[in-house]
């Protein structure tokens, strides 16, 4: 006979889901430290995550830099402070825009790809085929992809920041005629170590989050092709939500550190 629910069937199911996800994260972290390390697969995944996202990062970075600068100009112009544009743009990019927009772009591009790939492998028994061949799927599929996103999202963030900075420079150059050296000096002069450090922490946390949630969504897929679609969709939606929640938490922590 089935046991009665602890709270309600729905809450019990959600708690079981949280427990299963926690166990999955723990298994991934433990497996990361254990041999074998599948270096070739990690490199392959770094290529998939990094190189294949470059065109999208370039386009979104350039547009973000240009548009943000363009939209900020009227407000600063009303105070006669357009000379602050480089520092405003640089601070905005490093403190928030670059890590956040890059993470959202990666959640869409990389998260959906990983979710669909692993989801498809799950429903066609390819993951079970790995297991019966004595290959640990957590190690071979999840650890490699999570390492790749944790490493490549920060790299893409730095690249996105640079391209957006260039986009901002092109805009400022065309309106105010500012030189490259003056733009860089003005922009970077406003940054401190905590700004850069927090950007790196954000990018690493977001990268790990995208990888682990996309993998979880994929390996949890059920019900055939519909399940694969749900896995891809779940990977994007859940990782985007997690990124926003984590962004709020990280901002609070950094504000606390600044106030010390």
């Amino acid at each position, binding site marked *: 006979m*089935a046991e009665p629910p602890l709270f309600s069937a729905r809450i019990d199911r959600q708690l079981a889901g949280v427990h299963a996800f926690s166990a999955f994260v723990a298994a991934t972290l433990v497996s990361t430290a254990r041999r*074998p390390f599948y270096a070739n697969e990690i490199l392959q995944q770094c290529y998939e995550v990094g190189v294949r996202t470059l065109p999208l990062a370039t386009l979104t970075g350039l547009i973000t830099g240009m548009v943000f600068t363009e939209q900020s100009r009227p407000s600063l112009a009303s105070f006669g402070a357009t000379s602050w544009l480089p520092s405003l743009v640089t601070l905005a990019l490093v403190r928030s825009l670059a890590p956040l927009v890059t993470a959202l772009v990666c959640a869409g591009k990389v998260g959906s790809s990983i979710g669909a790939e692993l989801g*498809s*492998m799950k429903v*066609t*028994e*390819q993951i*079970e*085929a790995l*297991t*019966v*061949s*004595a*290959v*640990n799927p957590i190690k*071979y599929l999840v650890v490699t992809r999570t390492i790749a996103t944790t490493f490549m999202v920060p790299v893409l963030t730095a690249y996105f920041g640079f391209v957006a900075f260039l986009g901002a420079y092109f805009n400022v150059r065309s309106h105010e005629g500012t030189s490259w050296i003056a733009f860089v000096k003005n922009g970077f002069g406003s940054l401190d170590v905590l700004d850069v450090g927090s950007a790196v922490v954000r990018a690493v946390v977001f990268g790990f989050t995208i990888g682990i949630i996309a993998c979880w969504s994929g390996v949890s897929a059920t019900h055939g092709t519909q399940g694969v679609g749900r896995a891809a969709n779940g990977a994007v939606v859940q990782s985007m939500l997690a990124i926003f929640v984590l962004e709020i938490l990280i901002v609070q922590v950094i504000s606390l550190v600044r106030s010390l």
Partner: protein
Amino acid sequence: MTEREVVVSIRGLEKSFGTNVVLRGVDLDLYRAENLVILGRSGTGKSVLIKILVGLIEPDAGTVVVLGQDVHALKRRELDALRVRLGFAFQHAALYDSMTVEENLGFPLRMNHPKMPEAEVRERIDDVLEAVGLPQTRHQMPSELSGGQRKRIGIARTLILRPEIMLYDEPTAGLDPSTCGEINDLILQVRERYRTSAIVITHDLTCARATGDRIGVLVEGQLLVVGTFDEVFANPDPRIQAFYDYNFIQGARA
């Protein structure tokens, strides 16, 4: 007469999914170099039985001893070492669709024997491709193969690790009668060539008669009877006779 070596011993196996009871106290022995067929209609827990055998599913109760080792008492590494000695041919082949046939075949070897010389890997790939009669598919992608070819390559991928026990999950499901015959022949050839024992899960009586030394019929989570094809279907139990009728081969009984 010398006693035959038992390579798989299952005792009191029980498994439920929620309120759905799938296996209710199954007892079973598989002997060395024997092909044992488990017959049953779809959804009767046949696949669950062999997935429990390789540790893919945890049973609720009972013991499964494979090649002298209690599967569900093993640590991860020990279980992996045992899995290398078992070959699991999936119902839909489960080929890695991002890899060519050659890469699919080489993958288990490269993962389990990373130091094996490349020449030996190629030699093993040639051997299993020849065994399944598909050397021309070496550079093809799984999506370019027919259903029968996919099943054969799936079997080849399990053979590459030279398993002692083969587990076939519905090897003829979804294939035309001619291809079913080829797969049945292949199952017999695999035993001859690689000296394997095998459990064949199927609902296809022709496959059962062609490949099985002994046949067990799984009905409502229990093995009703185990014996030769003729012994099993001489049993008057209406559930076994209904299964026989279900396969529409009454005319072939005599």
